């Protein structure tokens, strides 16, 4: 591991100043992703600035009925919070479906959505990867693609040598739930505070796969707000994976269903495991507004949503299975949420 300096400044403002001033500086939360990357050589910072004891460790009620999660709250604490379990089951379920107890006790609200892809090539410094080493190419194309993207990729066979190619997925379960909840991210940066709608935090690879999010260097996540859901709204998270526990998602679905009558019904659907960012199925949501959520209607809406999907071939058989799997997982999640109890 490359040597680095370590700092634990006295305030969040000082932490932002220190990171902003050093191009090779990074923030440290629970460390469950960053420390792994230090060992793998994926992250090679000059300076590590510990913010775990600086940002808030509180979960507080907001005047509008929502909740504010301080960036230092652990994934365990958020999942166990009564208010989260009662009002935002989708978030508690997503957190509990991710990692393990020993990891969730360390992992933070600030760090979880900013964890990096689990693409095996990204994590292996001996292979080409545009995300880790811009311009080096993408080893995942036609490689092991089981955990890779089908949405937001340019073609069925992207050019593995092009500098913009990246078919990685975002691995966080929590982020998929936060996307469906229309959460709001509070950020403190060198230029002051700003808020970012959660759906705009992560980006598609575009022309720069090295950037996972819209955050600039030195921008610190200080809290994430959960807006109140409409009265009577129901929400759930469903994760499909290779093992019953302790595995990343192949496909996951976070859904919120609101509205008393069918005509007033609104549906929010976010997909995990299928794209470079949590994928809000906006077209499907629009088609399902005010309609009975029959298997046929949901299947049709997802068919429209997935028309741009690009199954990736791979030496492991590829990931075309994700397209029907995404539809079936949405159907099952909405069926559970609308089943009369």
């Amino acid at each position: 591991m490359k040597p680095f300096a370590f700092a634990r400044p006295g305030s969040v403002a000082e932490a932002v100043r220190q990171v902003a001033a050093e191009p090779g500086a990074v923030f440290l939360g629970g460390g469950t992703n960053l420390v792994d990357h230090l060992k793998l050589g994926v992250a090679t910072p000059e300076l590590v600035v510990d913010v775990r004891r600086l940002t808030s460790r509180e979960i507080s009620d907001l005047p509008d009925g929502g909740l504010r999660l301080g960036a230092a709250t652990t994934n365990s604490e958020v999942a166990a919070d009564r208010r989260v379990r009662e009002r935002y089951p989708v978030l508690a379920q997503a957190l509990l479906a991710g990692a393990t107890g020993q990891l969730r006790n360390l992992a933070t609200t600030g760090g979880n959505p900013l964890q990096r892809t689990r693409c095996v090539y990204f994590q292996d410094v001996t292979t080409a990867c545009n995300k880790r080493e811009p311009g080096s190419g993408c080893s995942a194309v036609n490689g092991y693609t089981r955990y890779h993207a089908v949405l937001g990729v340019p073609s069925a066979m992207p050019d593995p040598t092009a500098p913009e190619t990246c078919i990685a997925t975002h691995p966080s379960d929590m982020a998929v739930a936060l996307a469906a909840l229309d959460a709001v991210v509070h950020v403190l940066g060198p230029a002051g505070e700003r808020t970012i709608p959660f759906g705009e935090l992560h980006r598609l690879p575009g022309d720069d796969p090295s950037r996972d999010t819209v955050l600039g260097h030195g921008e610190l996540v200080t809290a994430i707000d959960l807006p109140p859901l409409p009265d009577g709204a129901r929400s759930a998270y469903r994760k499909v994976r290779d093992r019953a526990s302790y595995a990343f998602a192949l496909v996951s679905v976070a859904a919120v269903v609101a509205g008393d009558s069918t005509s007033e019904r609104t549906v929010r659907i976010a997909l995990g495991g299928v794209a470079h960012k949590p994928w809000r199925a906006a077209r499907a949501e629009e088609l399902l507004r005010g309609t009975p959520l029959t298997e046929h209607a949901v299947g049709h809406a997802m068919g429209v949503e997935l028309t741009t999907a690009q199954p990736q071939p791979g030496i492991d058989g590829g990931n075309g299975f994700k397209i029907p799997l995404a539809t079936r997982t949405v159907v099952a999640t909405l069926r559970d949420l609308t089943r009369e109890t």
Partner: protein
Amino acid sequence: MDAEISLTVDGVARRLTVDTRTTLLDTLRERLGNCSPKKGCDHGQCGACTVLLDGERALSCLALAVAHDGAEITTADGLARGGELHPVQQAFLDRDAFQCGYCTPGQICSAVGVLAEVDRGWPSHASPDLVADPELSHDEVAERMSGNLCRCAAYVNIVPAVQQAGGVQA
């Protein structure tokens, strides 16, 4: 680069200088001579390095020692009190919950954490009702202990050992 830190390990206050790159696991094993937490994978995947960090189970291989300056750590080595084994340790013996024993200190620390989490009413992915108080069913224990791999596959005896320590007849 070096940093001076203090840790309380199994009740004993320690002060030492560590390289900023040192994990808690390496600090415990190589600097403080406490070899009960094991290095299985060193990447957060196996649970062999599990300790109780400020009371909560955590992976010591993904924790930088400098980031936990001042922490209170309990390892499997420090669980026994006055010559009496911790109930989880006793249950692992009673239930024959290990073979080679390599994963066992991590399993035991994890199980101590699991029982405290269940006592506090924390739900898990296996909880049938997210808001009800959880019970120590087979599925609950298996899910909660899923971060502790056992290469000898002693799982069939680990689950009843955790249930026994939690006061469940199994």
